[in-house]
């Protein structure tokens, strides 16, 4: 028996079905959670009608010891400021030097590269210490990630687009999986070698102590290893999580790598996205298109076809050619003799530091230096610049448009609640856990062929969620200040606008602003996750057929 119309379940609930009709229905109910939920809901509705028709008093609303509006707003603001102050204090402490007794914390200096390094070390340590557990966990985690995301996507599509959309996606996924399986090879050897003169057909997924490719991989190469040496050729993309990457051969596609040390002396015809501690493009190395590099030390001696972007870098050194612009957010940017840049240099540097340009360095465009917002000094000068306020207005406008769109299309997303400061603290905890767990899960998912698209989708969802988190916090702050009327769009819009103005102003405060932004993102992410979990639990609630 498949799912039946509501009228049939109403007969069942009202006891109007003959036993021979009821039995198959009960057999179906055992297996179908949705129909079970509908039956429960119909019973509840019958009790509700009976209560209302008998004139019974409505049950008292659950007592909610919520503070009054102003007190709640002050409580929320005080908690946010306290969290931001704590974060800023910790950052300043770690940045400026630690007392001897806290010296052990120095290794935890917060930076993007440090976080990547930590993640890479963790994965490699598990692989080294508990290979059996790793082998088991890898496919389980990948399958769980893939299943959860696909299930979510199919459910969402079925709700939004009906059956055809979901079927189309399912067909696409099946085709992709079938196609992937045809070229999929997982290698768990201690040392993996694709010898010179040999060709590996299809995608090669390798988790090994070392991976050496002297021959040809006729597809993508996905490697999780301590040392990856490529002297041969990869005819697809190269995705690597490794301690050392030595790329001397050729990659036809793009390079996506999280490595402590990455050295490219060969050729990457596509883009390069590398996160690690050091990245060097040797004199004979070449990257065909753009390079986005998150590393403490970036050295560009070879040729880069288009733009180079270095983020969160300590030192950026250019001796080779960059086809277009160089963008750098770093402590130092050095242009040495032999550097040839086809476009502009845009550097975000600490106060008092300029781009160091040797006489022999050629820059076709302009060299501009921006002062980093965080860092030494409070950066009060920027408040005299009109473009700061234009940027703040833009942020408010963009947040407002997104918030209103979400409110119109999916109002449940922004319906986050935090009545008391302890709710916020819990949300911060959930947000931090999500920020740690989600990238790790994506990393694990990405080491399988099926998991790569899933990981990319997940990465997109995560990045989008970080922005939506800010809007959610703005809506929360606004609702604490304005208290919008339930169901009124204009009232919600007013609250959202008020919240955005407050939040954008707070996140641009000197010294505290950066920390406040981090706290707001983490809090918002935690609230969104809690909201999603709550919605997941509510899936057991009824849906009329």
């Amino acid at each position, binding site marked *: 028996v498949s799912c039946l119309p*509501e*009228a049939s379940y*109403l*007969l069942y609930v*009202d*006891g*109007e079905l003959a036993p021979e009709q009821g039995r198959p229905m009960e057999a179906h109910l055992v297996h179908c959670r949705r129909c079970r939920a*509908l039956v429960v*809901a*119909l019973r*509840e*509705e*019958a*009790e*509700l*009608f*009976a209560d*209302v*028709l*008998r*004139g019974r008093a*409505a*049950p*008292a*609303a659950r007592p909610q010891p919520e503070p009054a509006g102003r007190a709640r707003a002050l409580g929320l603001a005080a908690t946010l400021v306290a969290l931001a102050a704590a974060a800023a204090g910790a950052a300043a402490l770690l940045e400026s030097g630690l007392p001897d007794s806290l010296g052990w914390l120095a290794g935890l200096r917060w930076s993007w590269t440090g976080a990547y390094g930590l993640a890479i070390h963790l994965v490699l340590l598990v692989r080294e210490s508990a290979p059996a557990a790793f082998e088991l966990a890898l496919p389980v985690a990948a399958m769980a990630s893939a299943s959860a995301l696909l299930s979510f996507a199919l459910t969402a599509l079925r709700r939004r687009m009906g059956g055809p959309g979901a079927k189309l996606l399912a067909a696409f996924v099946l085709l992709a999986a079938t196609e992937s399986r045809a070229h999929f090879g997982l290698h768990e050897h201690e040392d993996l070698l694709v010898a010179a003169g040999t060709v590996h057909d299809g995608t090669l997924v390798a988790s090994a102590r070392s991976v050496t490719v002297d021959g040809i991989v006729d597809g993508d190469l996905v490697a999780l290893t301590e040392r990856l040496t490529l002297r041969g050729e990869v005819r697809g993309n190269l995705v690597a999580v490794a301690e050392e990457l030595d790329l001397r051969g050729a990659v036809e596609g793009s390079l996506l790598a999280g490595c402590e040390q990455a050295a490219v002396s060969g050729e990457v015809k596509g883009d390069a996205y590398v996160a690690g501690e050091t990245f060097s493009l040797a004199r004979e190395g070449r990257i065909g298109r753009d390079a986005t590099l998150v590393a403490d030390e970036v050295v560009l001696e070879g040729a880069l076809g288009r733009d180079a972007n270095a983020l969160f870098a300590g030192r950026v050194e250019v001796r080779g050619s960059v086809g277009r612009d160089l963008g750098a957010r770093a402590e130092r940017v050095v242009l040495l003799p032999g550097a040839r840049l086809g476009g502009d240099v845009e550097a975000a540097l600490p106060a008092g530091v300029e781009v160091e340009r040797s006489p022999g360095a050629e820059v076709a465009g302009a060299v501009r230096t921006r002062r980093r917002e965080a860092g030494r000094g409070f950066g009060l000068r920027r408040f005299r610049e009109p473009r700061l306020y234009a940027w703040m207005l833009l942020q408010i406008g963009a947040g407002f448009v997104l918030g209103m769109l979400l409110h119109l299309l999916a109002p449940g997303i922004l319906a986050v609640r935090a009545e008391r400061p302890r709710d916020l603290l819990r949300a911060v905890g959930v947000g931090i856990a999500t920020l740690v767990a989600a990238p790790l899960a994506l990393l694990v998912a990405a080491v399988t062929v099926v998991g790569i698209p899933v990981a990319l989708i997940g990465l997109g969802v995560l990045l989008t969620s970080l922005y939506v988190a800010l809007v959610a916090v703005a809506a929360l702050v606004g609702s604490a200040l304005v208290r919008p009327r*339930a*169901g009124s769009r204009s009232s919600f819009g007013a609250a959202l606008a008020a919240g955005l103005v407050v939040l954008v102003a707070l996140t641009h405060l000197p010294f505290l602003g950066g920390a406040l932004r981090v706290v707001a993102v983490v809090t918002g992410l935690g609230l969104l996750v809690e909201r999603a979990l709550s919605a997941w639990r509510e899936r057991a*609630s*009824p*849906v*009329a*057929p």
Partner: protein
Amino acid sequence: MREATVPAPERGARPQAAGGEEALHVHAGEVALLCRRLLGPGQAAEEAAEAALARARRALGGYHPREPFRRWLLAIATHHAIGILLERCPGPQPFAPGAAGPDDLEAPARPPLGHALAPEAWPALEGLLDELPDPHRAALVLRHLGELDYAGIAEALGVSREDVGTLLVRARRRVRAGLARRSAR
């Protein structure tokens, strides 16, 4: 609900007038509520309740204690109130599903209302129940207040059991849609 008892009449004797009156008094509130729900708020419902009680008083001689007194009394009140509804809407099948106007089947199906319904929404729900078309309201009231089964409702309204099922489903859908419209305002 407390069930009032009426002493059994001796063969050929009228029931004890005092006992019958007491039982009528105990259930008078329910009679008034049933008439109020079936006929809507207003003077007509109050008059109908009075008339139903008077009719029951006259019929006390025919009451046998084997039947629960409450059920017997409410059956009289139901019959009386339905008779008034029939006078309001004369026709061959005034309680047939088709008589309640076109059903809004194109409207998106909404989930049943549950315990999660906010207490503030109860007055609105009560108002919506009052505004239902007579066939829908009568079926819903007889089912959930009169506690009749489909056969009992079918007999009271002069329709088939299948029609009762249809009326109840449509009544629920109308109430849900009405509540959703109100909350969207």
